[in-house]
């Protein structure tokens, strides 16, 4: 039997939040997107059947929403340092180690194009297969692999 909305939320909200957070680098924005994703889930809940892959559905909605706001994110990336500091202060993430890890990731992620950023998150954070990412993002596997290897090559230099 399919879980109720609350159980689904408990099971997946942190994954959705982490994807959105690492894409936007803003906790408040990530919470807003996560909220939208689950509001959409509740609105569509009665139309789901037992077979539906809820995790994939939630990820797809989150990815699309994140990609929708990529223009705003691109602008934000320019002022990232300041905003990151503000977000860190707001959420109490002031620990030096946290900031270092985030700075390191920020350097990598804000340099790449929006869709590639999402691919990196799904591949290296969510540890998804290229075939799954391809299905979720509607991008051919070959293109995904090429994008990732270009980024990794750039990181090695």
């Amino acid at each position, binding site marked *: 039997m399919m879980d109720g909305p*609350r159980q689904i*939320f*408990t099971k997946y*909200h*942190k994954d959705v*939040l*982490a994807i959105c*957070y*690492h894409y936007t680098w803003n*906790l408040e924005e990530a*919470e807003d997107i*996560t*909220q939208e994703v*689950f*509001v959409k889930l*509740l*609105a569509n809940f009665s139309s789901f059947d037992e077979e539906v892959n809820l995790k994939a559905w939630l990820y797809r909605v989150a990815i699309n929403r994140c990609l929708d706001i990529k223009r705003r994110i691109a602008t934000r990336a320019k002022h990232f340092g300041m905003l990151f500091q503000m977000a860190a202060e707001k*959420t*109490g*993430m002031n*620990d030096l180690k*946290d900031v270092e*890890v*985030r700075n*390191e*990731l920020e350097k*990598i992620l804000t340099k790449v194009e929006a869709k590639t950023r999402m691919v*990196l*998150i799904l591949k*290296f*954070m969510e*540890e998804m297969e290229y075939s799954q990412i391809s299905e979720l993002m509607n991008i051919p596997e070959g293109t995904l692999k090429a994008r990732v290897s270009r980024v*990794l090559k750039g*990181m*090695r230099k």
Partner: protein
Amino acid sequence: MDKHELRELFSSSKKELYEDWKGEEDLWSNILKKEGKGRYVWKKFVYAGSVLMVVLLGISIWSWYPTNDQIFFTANDYVDALNFIGPSEEDEDGLDSYFEHYEIL
């Protein structure tokens, strides 16, 4: 940096995010609130739409519905019919008596 290091970086960032973030209950109550609000707005629109439809239907029925005169055979018509005398033998086509009855001639 290689892909293993990138994976580790993500993993520790994710772990830290989970440790720092304590907003589960707030997020869930916001979701319920927002969903409830959406549903309420949707319901309101449906309710307003139904009322409007009923009013419009009422107006159209009222304006198109035939009056009593058009529907019913009134007492006057009945008397009229009784008073009507059919054609006489001389008046083969009945036109004379018809005109006479209706005082046309």
